[in-house]
């Protein structure tokens, strides 16, 4: 047992559901007790999804405990097959079904007989893998399933496209800024003259998966999701993988050069150097920013970075290499892939922290007292408590990290967004400096008090106590409305009764 207040990566089934619900016309059925379908709430709220999340539960209740799911799971699969006509139904085990040890594989086989669509059991062990690993695995599983199916049927498309083309693998629902990143990558590929063969799993149809091999290469922008699939495709079809995350000016260039190498090896004969130079100087402002006076003021300022592998590693490199900021600590919660992270960042920071314990990170931040933090929502709250600004760079995230405006982290526009994020997170360089010199903005005490600060009315102790229980942001309004009410009716003293009467009459 582990005492835990918070977790960075969710349980395995969340990863599976993220993959399943990213595809078009794929339905997931969770084998889970009542209340475990919280994924639907998250997708509906965070992504502001207009459509019903294609996830339902086959409920595990007392009867199931006593007699097993028996027909229930099969019936639910077949029913969903008829109601929604999905191409694929993914039966998703949860922590509960893991320990029930029912033969879900058998249920899937039986349900397949009566279903028009395909039925698949997600092969993830709740107690061994987390959300990210499960997502990676499920994606590979689905791709493999449809590749094998196509191979058996003989309609697999292995012939390469005439022009260089790419599969972008790893864009998924509830991923951090994934949809903006996807748009940016599409634009980047278009600029490079590379056709998009498929984007997986986001909005992909399983029918198109047989066309995967016709791309010249696979681009895996995120470390956490898609590598298993890319490795499988490499083994099966010899498709090369580009797994350099194009985040930051230097890494974007490195990614493009790798693409160049990969497609030239297949006879493309392209030279992207001019493109890289033009984009770096004129489209991205990040390179210019690093020369500017603003950025000079950031030199040597201390920062702590924490997040998933992809984002924490990339941001660490950007801070150190591109902005001259001193990263005192870089960390990740992707414990299972810690070696990669260490290798990536160790030359760009003083210390590396691999931990899933938010308390440990908070303590480290408190001890190091950086000028800014780049982390998850949890680090943002640590920052709030310690009065240190924080830029959010990785999941877990809240609704404000699903912006409507265009905010990619990848590609050249991504470099601009990241520059803003970093710059705005540090207390504005020059302003900070000047404040220090002149000792703050307001040196005089405020003399005039606001209208609501004092009043002629006397609040008795009980009423005052009650008022103090009102949340701070509406307390002023409640106070004003109550006093107005009391004045109109000629009460001199505000008691609990007056307060309630006021609330009833004016909604104070």
């Amino acid at each position: 047992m582990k005492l835990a207040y918070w977790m960075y990566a969710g349980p395995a089934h969340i990863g599976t559901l993220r993959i399943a619900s990213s595809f078009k016309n794929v339905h997931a059925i969770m084998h889970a007790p009542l209340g475990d379908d919280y994924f639907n709430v998250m997708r509906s709220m965070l992504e502001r999804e207009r459509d019903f999340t294609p996830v339902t539960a086959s409920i595990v209740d007392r009867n199931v405990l006593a007699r097993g799911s028996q027909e229930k799971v099969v019936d639910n699969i077949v029913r969903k097959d008829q109601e929604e006509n999905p191409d694929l139904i993914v039966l998703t085990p949860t922590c509960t079904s893991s320990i029930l040890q029912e033969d879900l594989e058998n249920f899937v086989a039986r349900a397949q007989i009566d279903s028009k669509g395909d039925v698949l059991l997600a092969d993830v062990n709740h107690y061994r893998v987390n959300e990210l690993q499960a997502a990676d695995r499920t994606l590979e599983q689905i791709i493999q399933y449809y590749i094998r199916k196509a191979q058996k049927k003989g309609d697999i498309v292995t012939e390469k496209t005439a022009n260089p083309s790419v599969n972008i693998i790893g864009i998924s629902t509830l991923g951090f800024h994934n949809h903006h990143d996807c748009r940016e990558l599409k634009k980047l590929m278009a600029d490079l003259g590379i056709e998009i063969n498929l984007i997986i799993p986001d909005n992909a149809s399983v029918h198109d998966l047989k066309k995967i091999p016709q791309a010249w290469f696979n681009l895996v922008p995120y470390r956490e999701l898609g590598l298993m699939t890319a490795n499988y495709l490499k083994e099966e079809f010899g498709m090369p993988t580009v797994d350099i995350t194009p985040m930051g000016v230097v890494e974007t260039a490195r990614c493009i050069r790798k693409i160049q190498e990969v497609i030239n090896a297949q006879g493309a004969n392209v030279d992207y150097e001019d493109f890289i130079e033009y984009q770096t100087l004129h489209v991205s402002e990040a390179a210019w920013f690093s020369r500017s006076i603003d950025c000079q003021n950031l030199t040597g300022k201390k920062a702590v970075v924490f997040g998933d592998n992809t984002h924490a590693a990339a941001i660490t490199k950007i801070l150190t290499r591109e902005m001259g900021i001193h990263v005192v600590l870089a960390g990740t919660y992707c414990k299972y892939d810690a070696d990669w992270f260490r290798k990536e960042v160790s030359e760009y920071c003083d210390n590396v922290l691999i931990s899933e314990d938010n308390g440990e990170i908070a303590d480290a931040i408190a001890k190091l007292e950086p000028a800014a933090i780049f982390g998850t929502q949890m680090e943002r709250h640590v920052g709030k408590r310690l009065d240190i600004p924080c830029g959010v760079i990785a999941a877990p995230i809240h609704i404000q990290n699903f912006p409507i405006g265009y905010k990619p982290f990848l590609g050249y526009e991504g470099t601009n967004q990241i520059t803003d994020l970093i710059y705005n997170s540090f207390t504005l360089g020059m302003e900070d400096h000047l404040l220090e010199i002149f000792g703050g903005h307001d040196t005089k005490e405020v003399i005039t008090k606001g209208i609501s600060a004092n009043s002629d009315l006397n609040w008795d102790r009980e009423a005052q106590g009650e008022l103090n229980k009102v949340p701070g942001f509406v307390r002023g309004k409640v106070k004003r409305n109550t006093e107005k009410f009391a004045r109109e009716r000629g009460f001199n003293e505000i008691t609990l009764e007056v307060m309630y009467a006021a609330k009833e009459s004016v909604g104070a």
Partner: protein
Amino acid sequence: MTLAQEKPATPELNFECETGNYHTFCPISCVAWLYQKIEDSFFLVIGTKTCGYFLQNAMGVMIFAEPRYAMAELEEADISAQLNDYNELKRLCDQIKRDRNPSVIVWIGTCTTEIIKMDLEGIAPKLEAELGIPIVVARANGLDYAFTQGEDTVLASMANRCPKESEVKQEAEKTERNAIQKLMNFGKKAEDTNHNEEYHKHPPLVLFGSLPDPVVTNLTLELKKQGVKIDGWLPAKRYTELPVIDEGYYVAGVNPFLSRTATTLMRRRKCKLIGAPFPIGPDGTRAWIEKICSVVGVEPQGLAEREAQIWENIQDYVDIIKGKSVFFMGDNLLEISLARFLIRCGMTVDEIGIPYMDKRYQKGELDFLAQTCQEMGVKVPTIVEKPDNYNQLQRIKEIKPDLVITGMAHANPLEARGINTKWSVEFTFAQIHGFTNARDILELVTRPLRRNNNLKDLGWSKLVKEEAKI
């Protein structure tokens, strides 16, 4: 109330039961409001990452406020019994005692502890003796319960911990309890000394159900106006202040989902349950007070005027919803009371979905619903227990209600299809009890209508292409 009893029999309610494929919160969510209510408690949820993930996301910002709850996250070795449950729990509770020093640790059993049959009830007393901190066990799991029923399981367990009068009289504990009480509310002393003049003489009355403190004060005050004294409240602000409950005490529930607690109070503590409608809406509040008064033998004063006054105050909101229809998909067991209040406001109710329907505990409320339908001249709604969300969406599509009260999983997709929705969970966290808060209920109910009224001329009420299937 008295008027109604003279009238002919009220219409029969229709009950249906579907598949139970519906969306609701896991009952462990009760820790979120109970740890805030019981200030000296610590809630330990013994479950998996799934439980933790739900709590962390469902409770949003609360998670960052150093909550007095945590997960005892079960690992593979716990499941396969390679680790000893007792030792593991002891280690964790030791740490909690060291770090937080709570007056009670509440263990929340989950689906996993049920399936692996972890003997929490057996381990707790031993550990309690060893640790010197009371350990209360509540099995609030998704196998058996929905959302607010979590509170019911916790309060039912707490009911067994309420002291008896004879116990309180034992000197040592008495001084300790009083010391804390005095410390906490030293100002009430004056009130206590002359309370006999303000209150009628009646048998002790204890209310059960967790409400925010302002609502507790408010309802206490309402009953005080009638000369009815509340002798205690389950739960109190602190675990050390749990009310005295003795044989023969009267108890009354303030929420519709507390049937286990009611049963425990009746069977284990030998209390007498006052079966009343719940104090939600001015009609419900009046009926609740009247019922309590009639049972303890007090003639209620001025309630009709009080109710009328409230109705007058909320008339502007009532006007907005009058004649409109509402559909409850059902997820928090407040549905019957809310539907009854909204019918009184002039709405029609197409369907009341509800996770679980205790017809005995909710009898007062159900009768009141039927009576309200009759008095308002509307059809009695169908009450659908264990609803099937998919079927409900088909029905919603067909009847196009003016408002659907539903969980967040369906709210945005329904809005995108031009259907007004109100997120049901807000009713659980908003202050909705008593005369004073009637306006707050309508504030919630009318909000989507007011908002969409502002947008109605913009021409984008439907934001998805209508598919063949929903």
